[in-house]
């Protein structure tokens, strides 16, 4: 009894809440917080008022029209009043600017939204079409907010997404919750709906809303600037045409290089450093390790093939210790440097915040295990690497031999070819001669001689003027010696090679050990992108012999925010803990889940229609004994599509009686069915059963077309026929 009495109020509140929610979502990009709150309250109040008015006064069309006109003029008047207030300087002086804006916005949105809600509810209570519009508006308001988030672009509505960001919550989550709330409200309305013709409409609206949510929402990752790394390490950077290349194309060299299909490091006159601070990855070291050079070198790629113009990435025969793709299975790197006195294994984990074309790993990777190959909530990718890191100080590597004994002549030639320019050899020789005689044949000592020359003479600057030269490295080395890491790395590599040392240019990220600040997490930022020269020593592998110019025109990268570094490291640990060792691809991401849900919904839809048509058509081909029941069931389905269903506890005869005016043949069919069901075996289908069934179909075809269409589109009607 109490429930019955409460029912209208509960229904009204639900409707009003749905409208208020829709109002919040629609208005929040347009106004300030006060306006949003006022709009929500006004929408709720307007809907409640409209319902109360409809219920209390058995309002005729005339009175309804009067109320509608009143509401419309209140809305208009409020907006005009707000506009007038906005031009009153006295208000501003009295309330302050913020207060005045809040008041005006609240007044404007409350009057407009309130009047709109009142009109909408009034219309919906009186007309079927307006009721459809009501549900449609609520659904559309919520789905529009989702549509703004397509592809993870979180920027609307500001009030909600900013609030979420400032509280460390993913805005997509907030919108998901809102969507769920709206869907729940609509569902509650649907359940408590008493007018049957609205049921299919509401059901369709909910299904549409659910589909939209699933289709449009992508849970986004962290908002990061695209790092402007000029070295082409990240996916985005590689995909964009670069300035340096364009300028090279003008003097005719770009064309030939394009045919090679192999990437090289571009020389640029003006190195972009916009994305220096943007985090690109976080690395967790699972063991303590101090690199001999004081810098962690994360190699992504290497350039060792001299094609007559510059160094490019070599074909697959060489540099096999470089990771070329993200492996989908745990992968042992071929040609990884052996574990000897000079190297020790170090497990590391990587969480990429920005998409990269290739994985990078601490020098030098031996085994790579993918953790997740697809995008997840925070990290684009996570993987685990066991690196054989160099532990031997450089001094103790003196006396080694260059290259490997098993290298073929081609390999030697590959790693030592350099520009034919005689100045390289000349300069290199002169540098070696400064060494004391016992070190003149030592490969590492020779490299160090070159390094110290470049360190002393070179000037580090992000602005230089070598990119358009025939050989930018020569232009740099024999010119003003002003450039950045790419220039230094190339010049050093050519000089090493001129001395017969196998050398190459490696690119990736270099992070100073000091950045670790004692923790185990290391934040890699766009500004850490770096290129450096390496030489190959027997039994040790590729050894970084990097340059450190003493004169620098541009400052180095400031240390990373230790808090952010620690936080991201914790997140990576957390993530890896959650899924310690799983097969790649087994993890379901939201996008994945969305696809599954979509498939499931489509499957259910198809199944619903299939069963619906099966139930409708099977009586025509069924054996005679089953026909009465099947024809009757098909008739029930048809009536259910039109919203006519047997009530609980109602007998079949009473239901048939209720349908007599709509379908005069139905009682007859009911009797045939009941005779078959309760009359024992005597219930043989009479000859005219088919005629009765046809007659029924004829009778039901008088129903309005839109009603039949709606019923025909409803894949669930047969489930509700009783």
């Amino acid at each position, binding site marked *: 009894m109490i429930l019955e009495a409460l029912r209208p109020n509960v229904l009204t509140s639900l409707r009003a809440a749905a409208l208020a929610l829709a109002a919040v979502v629609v208005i929040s990009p347009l106004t300030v917080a006060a306006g949003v709150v006022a709009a929500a309250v006004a929408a709720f109040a307007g809907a409640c008022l409209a319902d109360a008015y409809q219920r209390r006064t058995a309002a005729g069309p005339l009175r309804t029209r009067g109320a509608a006109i009143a509401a419309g003029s209140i809305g208009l008047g409020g907006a005009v009043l707000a506009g007038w207030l906005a031009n009153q300087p006295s208000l501003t002086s009295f309330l302050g600017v913020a207060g005045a804006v809040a008041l005006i916005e609240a007044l404007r949105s409350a009057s407009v939204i309130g009047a709109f809600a009142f009109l909408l509810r009034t219309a919906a209570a009186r007309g079927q079409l307006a009721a459809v519009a009501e549900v449609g508006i609520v659904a559309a308001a919520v789905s529009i907010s989702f549509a703004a988030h397509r592809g993870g672009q979180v920027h609307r509505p500001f009030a909600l997404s900013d609030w979420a960001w400032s509280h460390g919550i993913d805005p997509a989550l907030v919108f998901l919750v809102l969507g769920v709330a709206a869907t729940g409200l609509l569902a509650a309305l649907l359940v408590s709906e008493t007018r049957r013709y609205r049921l299919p409409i509401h059901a369709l609206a909910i299904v549409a809303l659910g589909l939209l949510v699933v289709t449009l929402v992508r849970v986004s990752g962290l908002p990061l600037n695209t790092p402007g790394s000029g070295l082409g390490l990240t996916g985005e950077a590689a995909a964009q045409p670069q300035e340096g290349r364009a300028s090279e194309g003008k003097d005719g060299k770009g064309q030939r290089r394009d045919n090679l299909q192999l990437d090289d490091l571009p020389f640029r006159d003006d190195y972009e450093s916009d994305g220096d601070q943007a985090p690109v990855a976080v690395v967790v070291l699972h063991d303590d390790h101090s690199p001999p050079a004081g810098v962690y070198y994360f190699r992504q790629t290497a350039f060792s093939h001299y094609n007559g113009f510059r160094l490019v990435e070599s074909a697959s025969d060489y540099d096999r210790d470089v990771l070329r793709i993200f492996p989908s299975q745990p992968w042992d790197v071929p040609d990884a440097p052996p574990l000897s006195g000079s190297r020790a294994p170090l497990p590391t984990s990587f969480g990429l915040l920005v998409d990269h074309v290739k994985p990078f790993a601490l020098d030098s990777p031996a085994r790579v295990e993918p953790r997740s190959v697809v995008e997840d909530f925070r990290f684009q990718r996570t993987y685990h690497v066991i690196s054989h890191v160099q532990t031997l100080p450089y001094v103790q590597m003196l006396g080694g031999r260059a290259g490997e004994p098993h290298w073929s002549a081609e390999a030697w030639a590959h790693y030592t070819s350099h520009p034919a320019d005689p100045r390289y050899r000349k300069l290199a020789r002169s540098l070696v001669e400064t060494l004391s005689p016992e070190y003149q044949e030592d490969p590492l000592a020779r490299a160090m001689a070159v390094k110290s020359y470049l360190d002393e003479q070179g000037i580090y600057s992000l602005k230089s003027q070598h990119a358009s030269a025939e050989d930018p490295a020569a232009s740099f080395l024999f010119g003003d010696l002003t450039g950045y890491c790419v220039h230094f790395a190339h010049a050093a590599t050519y000089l090493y090679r001129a001395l017969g040392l196998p050398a190459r240019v490696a690119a990736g990220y270099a992070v100073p050990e000091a950045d670790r600040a004692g923790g185990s997490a290391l934040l890699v930022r766009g500004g850490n992108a770096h290129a450096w020269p390496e030489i190959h020593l027997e039994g040790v592998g590729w050894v970084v012999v990097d340059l450190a110019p003493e004169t620098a025109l541009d400052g180095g990268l400031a240390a990373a925010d230790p808090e952010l570094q620690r936080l991201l490291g914790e997140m990576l640990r957390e993530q890896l803990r959650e899924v310690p060792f799983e097969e790649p691809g087994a993890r379901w991401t939201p996008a994945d889940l969305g696809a599954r849900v979509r498939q499931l919904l489509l499957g259910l839809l198809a199944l619903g229609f299939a069963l619906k048509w099966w139930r409708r058509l099977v009586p025509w081909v069924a054996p005679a004994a089953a026909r009465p*029941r099947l024809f*009757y*069931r098909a008739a*029930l389905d048809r009536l259910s599509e039109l919203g006519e269903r*047997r009530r*609980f*506890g*109602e*007998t*079949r*005869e*009473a239901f048939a009686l209720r349908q007599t005016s709509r379908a005069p043949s139905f009682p*007859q069919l009911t*009797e*045939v*069915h*009941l*005779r078959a*069901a*309760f*009359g*024992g075996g*005597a219930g043989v289908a*009479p000859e*005219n059963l088919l005629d009765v069934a046809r007659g029924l179909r004829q009778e039901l075809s008088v129903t309005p077309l839109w009603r039949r269409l709606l019923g025909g589109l409803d894949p669930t009607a047969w489930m509700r026929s*009783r």
Partner: protein
Amino acid sequence: MTISETTPAGDPLIEARDVLARIRARVLHQVIGRDDVIDLVLIALVADGHVLLEDFPGSGKTTLAKALGGAIRAPEDGGLASFRRIQFTPDLLPSDVTGLSVFDPERGAFDFRPGPVFTQILLADEINRTSPKVQAALLEAMGEKQVTLDNVTHPLDRLFFVIATQNPRDLAGTYPLPVAQLDRFLFKVRMEPIDREAELEVLRTRRERRDEDPAELPPVGQEEVLRARDAIDANVMVDDAIHECLVDTAAAIRADDRVAQAASTRSLVLSVPALQARAALHGRDFVSSEDLADLLPWVLAHRIEAVALGSAEPYDLARELMAGPLDRLARRSLRR
């Protein structure tokens, strides 16, 4: 398509229906605006049950009972009246109902003088006005269809049918029937006041209805009624789903919190012939859910003893509680 088209001619069921229709037509001629009650009484007659009518004085109970008695011809030989009436009063004695043994000095033996129960149709007016002793005597006769006096058993007429009445309002100085006694009645029917048109019709046609024996509607023989009873019992199919629904309904009523005591198994057994009779009356040779929905509340209501007085009208309670089993029955019909 009706039953008469699909059932072969000469069917005993059709004859039974014909008998019922004739009785009905005769009673309808006398009683106006009580079609539903007439149907219930007819069903009880065929189902070998008895009816308790609750109504105000002057609402046509006697007319109805007399009309029914007039519609059935008494057997030629027995010398029984087809219709008797007992007006119950507090000072009535059991022998006033059942009859008594009178000493015949000529023969020097006791002679049995049959009481008013030795008839076909008995109207027991205001049954709650008499003492429980007299009530018990009548109710025993109703249950056993016989009267035992001085160790001699006197069987009653095979068609013995009681229409008892009681006034639901004027309860001062009455002996209300206990539930156990009420259980002997198949139906307890509360008669609502007839509608305006029917009441006008009663006034307009009072003269014609006084001619008791309309020539075009000959009364039905007792044998015919008995034959119809057997035919219906033998030929109206009762599906097991119907039995289940009956049992489920009784269980649902017993399980309800508001009910202290509910329908007995006997009442369920008694209700089956009533269901069959209703099916036959509606031209069906099987019992359907409609029969259950229509009859069961009448069968069950007066057997329900509510926990608290006035908590719910038993008739409405029965209707409410049978909705679940009825729904199951309806859904079950689609499944096989």
